[in-house]
């Protein structure tokens, strides 16, 4: 669905995307994970055929965005990072007007709007103006709007930012449904749990480059251990403790507020630490996540 080779995006002198390779297959859910400014949105906008590439090769749905932008866009669904709904129109009108730009008949968009409002649980607000809707409702409407042309490829730029947990789960469920209906999804996020839940495969981006690629499980297996032991200390105690626990894990990460010990069995490491007289304020044994992968790859946490 999407093929990129040495794809570059420059804004003046600044290189936001510095030569990335991508291969997104039909029917999969593909993710971009990365911190602020990694170049996720810039990449998404190139794939969405709204931002011309500065260098490299790109094909979307088998076509060149530079030459066949409108034809590609006709078959895409796009959820931009920032909502750009027409706030002076009603929910229903937003869907209908937008649908018309895809060459759909009036009758078709009327039907489709009803179906999409159902999908996004906005039926009760159908004829209300968009302006006073809550942020989560607007987000849901933006997502519903992106589906008006039954897209083959759906691009979601941080779809759940600003949604409450319940709304996020609702959205994930909707995205699963789309995926099982055969829609290819590309999602950017800086939530690891979202990436783990949604994506079959993902790339980790940092500073305009792809630093790792694989399925969530593969990435965790490759770049992290099975378990992580987190130790928190009273202010001032952490420094002394680091030296005494370092050898207990395969790897250790020292964050400002805690120590992370990477080990196959967290409980065993914790017992050993206790045996050495280390007294953390609190401790936690958990499974490795993509957050740990990211930390390993970039030396930074994903969400500060």
């Amino acid at each position, binding site marked *: 669905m999407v093929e990129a080779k040495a794809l570059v995006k420059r*804004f003046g002198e600044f290189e936001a995307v510095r030569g990335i390779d991508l291969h997104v297959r039909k*029917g999969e859910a593909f993710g971009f994970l990365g911190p602020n400014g990694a170049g996720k949105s810039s990449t998404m906008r190139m794939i*969405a055929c*709204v*931002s*011309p590439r500065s260098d490299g090769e790109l094909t979307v749905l088998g076509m060149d965005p530079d030459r066949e*932008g*409108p*034809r590609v*866009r*006709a*078959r*895409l669904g*796009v959820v*931009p990072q*920032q909502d*750009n*709904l*027409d*706030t*002076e*129109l009603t929910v229903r*009108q937003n869907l*209908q*007007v*937008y649908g*018309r*730009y*895809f*060459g*759909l008949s009036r009758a*078709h968009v009327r039907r489709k709007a009803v179906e999409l409002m159902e999908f996004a649980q906005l039926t009760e607000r159908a004829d209300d103006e968009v302006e006073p809707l809550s942020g989560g409702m607007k987000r849901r409407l933006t997502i519903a709007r992106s589906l008006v*042309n*039954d*897209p*083959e490829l759906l691009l979601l730029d941080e779809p759940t930012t600003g949604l409450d947990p319940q709304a996020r789960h609702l959205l994930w469920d909707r995205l699963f449904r789309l995926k099982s*209906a*055969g*829609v290819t999804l590309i999602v950017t996020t800086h939530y690891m749990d979202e990436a783990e839940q949604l994506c079959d495969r993902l790339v980790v981006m940092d500073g305009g480059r792809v630093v790792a690629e694989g399925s969530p499980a593969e990435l965790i297996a490759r770049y992290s251990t099975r378990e992580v032991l987190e130790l928190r200390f009273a202010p001032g105690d952490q420094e002394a403790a680091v030296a005494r626990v370092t050898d207990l894990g395969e790897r250790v990460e020292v964050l400002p507020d805690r120590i992370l010990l990477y080990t196959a069995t967290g409980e065993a490491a914790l017992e050993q630490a206790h045996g050495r007289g280390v007294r953390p304020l609190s401790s936690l044994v958990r499974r490795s996540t993509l957050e740990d992968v990211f930390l390993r790859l970039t030396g930074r946490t994903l969400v500060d």
Partner: protein
Amino acid sequence: MAVVSSGRVVGSWRAAWLRVEGHWTWYRRYWRSNLYSSGLQPLLYLLAMGIGFGSQVEPGPATGGLSYVHYVAPALLVAGAVQYAVGESTYPVLSGFKWQKDFIAVTSTPVTAGQVLGGQLIWVAIRLVLSGVVYLLIAWPFGAWLNAGAIAVVLVGAVTGMACAAPLMAIAATTYDEGSRFTSIFRFIVMPMLLFAGTFFPIEQIPAAIRWLAWISPLWHGNELARGVTLGGLDLLPALGHLAFLAALFAAGGLAARHCFYRRLVV
């Protein structure tokens, strides 16, 4: 499973027209206040200047021997159209890029930046005709019109308005702040033009040294045409000249706007 999208690319004119349809959806919700204000303002001018002030003006050579209300009514329509066009091509266009961001939303569909501009221009033209008709009808009972040529004045107003709208859309597309330059344009270009470009008195009254300022203002060309089509006294050749000036301004402004729309929307 194969998904086949229902979306397709529509032709350029159709795409621009779909934008008009989108604007119309909005207009249907707000037309009352819009049409009211667009018809009301020229009417107030007509009452104050044409009938009030005009009662103190003797018909003379400057008014072509006509009463002042007949002299000023066609020009007021054109001046109103220019003001309206300026209003519609500044903040609303900037909003499409910056606040409402509807241009950004629309260009992620098959519709292109050029088609968005086309839709915007057509939409302004339609509203110029609509508000011109409203003014025409309101001014009628006040005896503002001498003959059916008044209907053509509506078209002259629309053409003059469009000659202003196109370059202003180019300026709006290159505006990144809150639009403070629009205030300057209003103050230092539009207002003087409304007052001195032959709407209320012939430009022969302006000192010859600065009369060229009137000659290069679209409103003066519009006013000459508007008076010509309803009051007569305008030969074909000068009429074509005025029309050509307005058409050239529209074309140059439109091309510049097209360039600026692409530069702003495709980054």
